[in-house]
């Protein structure tokens, strides 16, 4: 039954995604495109987090996607809707390699390995200007760029598909495997899942989705350079969004993405008269968000006020 309701919601959202951009103000439509990229990257980050894999390298996937789309468009005039295929394959391949190479690294160490690979990719993009245009960046072949409405619809559809994927993942038998992965890998084996292969699978899926976000950006801005395509800010917002919305949930990354991008936009519009204020407010919100609502907006909503049990390793504070 739940699955049926899920399908209805997904199909409904797809219809909305296709129709709505025709009636929206252009700035809002652009904003929705940006939102979609954030949802993609946040949801894909959350998928890995679900399995206990904290990635600090999502800007790497993003940049790979953006560059593959831009370079293929320029070399072979591959249209935007088709360009997600090679980008996703590349993202998945890179993700699989990353998961394979990092083998048994966990937690912070896996995170740092991902950060290092993504930074290394940025250096490569800077250092082979013959291929990537180097620091000067590349324009995407303008004649085949889609118009704004197509762009918004397309990226919203991708966002819906991503959320649907994580929704079905959370309903599938893999949800137990995911949860078990966060806890310990031997527990995964008990569920009959090969943890190594499962890790690779999750990272590949996450990488594929995150590179989609890069593809959208390349087409959306029509210009990319290594500084912005491999910007650490992408990685950071990819984790701020789920954290803000609620980690390990399906709606968390979506709600979080909407919330932080809306906040960022409002602060940008209302505080744009002095340098740095916008980002400052954003930082303050982040700090207070983490301090005041550790389980995110979704958690705040559910009012799930269980007694907080402290980690045995950190002695409890005197009340």
């Amino acid at each position, binding site marked *: 039954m739940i699955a049926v309701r899920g399908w209805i919601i997904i199909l409904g959202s797809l219809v909305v995604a296709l129709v709505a951009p025709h009636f929206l103000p252009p700035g809002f439509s652009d904003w929705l495109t940006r939102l979609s990229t954030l949802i993609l990257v946040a949801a894909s980050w959350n998928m890995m987090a679900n399995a206990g894999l904290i990635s600090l390298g999502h800007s790497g996937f993003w940049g790979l996607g953006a560059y593959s789309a831009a370079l293929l468009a320029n070399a072979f005039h591959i249209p935007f809707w088709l360009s997600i295929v090679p980008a996703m394959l590349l993202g998945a391949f890179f993700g699989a390699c990353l998961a394979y190479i990092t083998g048994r690294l966990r937690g912070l160490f896996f995170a740092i390995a991902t950060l290092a690979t993504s930074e290394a990719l940025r250096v490569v993009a800077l250092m082979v200007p013959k291929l990537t245009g180097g620091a000067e960046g590349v324009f995407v072949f303008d004649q085949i760029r889609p118009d704004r409405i197509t762009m918004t619809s397309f990226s919203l559809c991708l966002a819906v598909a991503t959320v649907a994927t994580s929704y079905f993942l959370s309903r599938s038998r893999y949800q137990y495997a995911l949860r078990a992965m966060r806890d310990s890998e031997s527990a995964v084996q008990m569920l009959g899942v090969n943890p190594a292969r499962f890790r690779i699978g999750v990272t590949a899926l996450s990488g594929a989705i995150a590179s989609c976000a890069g593809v959208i950006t390349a087409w959306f801005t029509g210009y990319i350079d290594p500084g912005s395509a491999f910007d650490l800010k992408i990685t950071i917002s990819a984790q701020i969004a789920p954290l803000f919305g609620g980690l390990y949930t399906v709606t968390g990354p979506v709600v979080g993405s909407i919330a932080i991008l809306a906040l960022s936009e409002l602060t940008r519009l209302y505080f744009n008269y002095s340098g740095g204020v916008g980002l400052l407010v954003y930082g303050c919100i982040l700090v207070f968000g983490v301090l005041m609502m550790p389980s995110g907006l979704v958690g705040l909503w559910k009012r799930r006020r269980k007694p907080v049990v402290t980690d045995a390793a950190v*002695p409890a504070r005197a009340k």
Partner: protein
Amino acid sequence: MTAAMLELDNIRAGYNDAIAVENISLTVGQSEVVCLLGANGAGKTTTMRVVTGLIPLLGGTIRYNGEDISQMPPHERVTAGICLSPEGRQVFPDLTVMENLSLGSFNRRARRNRAQTLDQVLTLFPKLAERSGQAAGLMSGGEQQMLAIGRALMGQPKLLALDEPSLGLSPKMVSTVFESIQTIARSGITILLVEQNTRAALSIAQRGYVLSAGRVVHEGTAADLAQSEMVQKAFVGAAFTKQSVRKSRRERRLAESNPGGAGA
């Protein structure tokens, strides 16, 4: 039985979602040696952790010398005189034996008489004097156990809590360690002892409690318990229960959150 030094009243505690002990009540009198018996996962170690404040209390109260210490953080309990030699020894592996011992008397009360206490401890465990400059992690299990107990003694405890002092030791080592414990007990220090080696524990304790599945199932004097069938049962019943799985996972988590912790 003299005046109660430690009183546990209906305590409840656990890890994350799992409750490990429920409704446990027990008392330890002044200068008494009390042991907690039970199988793996019965809740003994959890009880010790609650007593020392390593994990928060979810229900019930703990009184120490009549004062409610339920919410007191662990380091203040040490200052108040409750010192634990933890399960798995948990010595600081990269610190020398001497440094480990000095840390034992980190608390304000014990620091003043550090030199004196150190003499006493080194008399009790001469082995530690021999190894004083060695990194604790490089010592044998038995030596580490002595160090753990010695370190707890350095805190000049009024109540010494010993969690599984015989774990992983050779029979010869076990008897050495228990002799030392007896010596400590004679000096008038109250001891709360958790032990799987029932016989050894009952040989030095005056009273004991038997725990099973997080509850007290039996209590009595050492002599009573030594003959009781309940005690035998409590151990047989714990072949492979859900709880033992939970405990082992919890242990792993603890070990993980204590990176570099003693090679338990």
